[in-house]
């Protein structure tokens, strides 16, 4: 998207769920290679069970993942 104003990144820790990432963030793998973001807002896995890591696939609900409060 050209001409778009920069959008500061925010990361929202969803209770018992993923990290919701908005704004200008570059995702990279362990070797520093970019991971394509296919949508403007992404959810990153926090429970460790996602089949599409680093993105969330809702598995936290199936395993009863609870974030420490």
């Amino acid at each position: 998207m050209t001409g778009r104003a920069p959008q500061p990144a925010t990361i929202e820790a969803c209770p018992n769920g993923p990290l919701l990432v908005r704004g200008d963030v570059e995702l990279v793998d362990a070797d520093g290679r970019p991971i394509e973001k296919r949508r403007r807002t992404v959810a990153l896995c926090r429970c460790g069970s996602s089949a599409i890591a680093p993105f969330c696939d809702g598995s936290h609900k199936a395993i009863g993942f609870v974030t420490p409060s």
Partner: protein
Amino acid sequence: MKLPAPRGPLGASLTDLLVHPPRDTDIVDDVVLTRWRDAAATADPLTDDDLQLTLWTLYALHYRGFEGVDDAWEWDPDVLRLRRVLEDAFEASLRDRVAVPAGTAAEREAVASALFAMTAPGPGPSVARYVSRSADATQAEEFLIHRSLYTLMEADPHTWAIPRLSGVPKAALVEVQADEYGGGRPERMHSALFARTMRGAGLVDEYGYYVDRLPAVTIAALNLMSLFGLHRRWRGAIAGHLAAFEMTSSLPNRLYGDGFRRLGHDEGTTDYFDEHVEADAVHEQIAGRDLAGRLAEQEPELVGDILFGAAACLYLDELVGRHLLDAWSAGTSSLRAA
């Protein structure tokens, strides 16, 4: 799209009206209204073919209309009066049957956790598990045909709510809908991805093509969204509906994708399902917290409607699921005869 074949007196009476242009004189008098009320009152509104198909036809005037039907019918007072007869019966039946959890505070996290609790994955039989493991090619096609009534216009009914909202809930709904509509890329629109799935399975991807084959419950599930979306008074319910819909999507879509892969379909055909695994894990958070949760904080009197919308979504989803699984376990088709 062509007008569907009427399934009873309501549909026949509506078709008689719609094939002519609207007139200034009132056509729908008390005699007609009474006849419609009687027909709607004697039916089980959720499973009555005539009622649900006729209501779908009336709602379709607000979306894409029909070939040979004057667009002016959309806001014609006569058809709106008839629509209300059917909506009243539909609403009364939903009120009667759909249980809403009580005691939820009008706070963002309380509403979001109530919605997540209502939609928590259960161990019972599910269409997703069946499609994943057992469905044959014919049943998989039937599944797509059922889904196509909504999915070839995916997101449209909830979009009606945007101008009825403000602030955080409005921005949240737009954020979800922008993603549903492909984020500026028409080929990534979810309805377009589903059209590709239909073509991949050798089906026709034209909206409404299969409506004559669909049973009342499948049509009712879409009518529910149009009912909630088209009425501002139901803005809480459409928000709750979207949250419940998104919250019951990621995990089942992984299974649907697995099922279609098992049946030998390629990536183009399974892309719709795979896309939803990732997208709806995002959408469920936004819809639960920033749409439904924040709306409850803005308008605390809507908490009951938000949860009602979610519960009604789940109730009809369950009816559709049971219809499919009952037909398939009996070795019969879940579709009406061609």
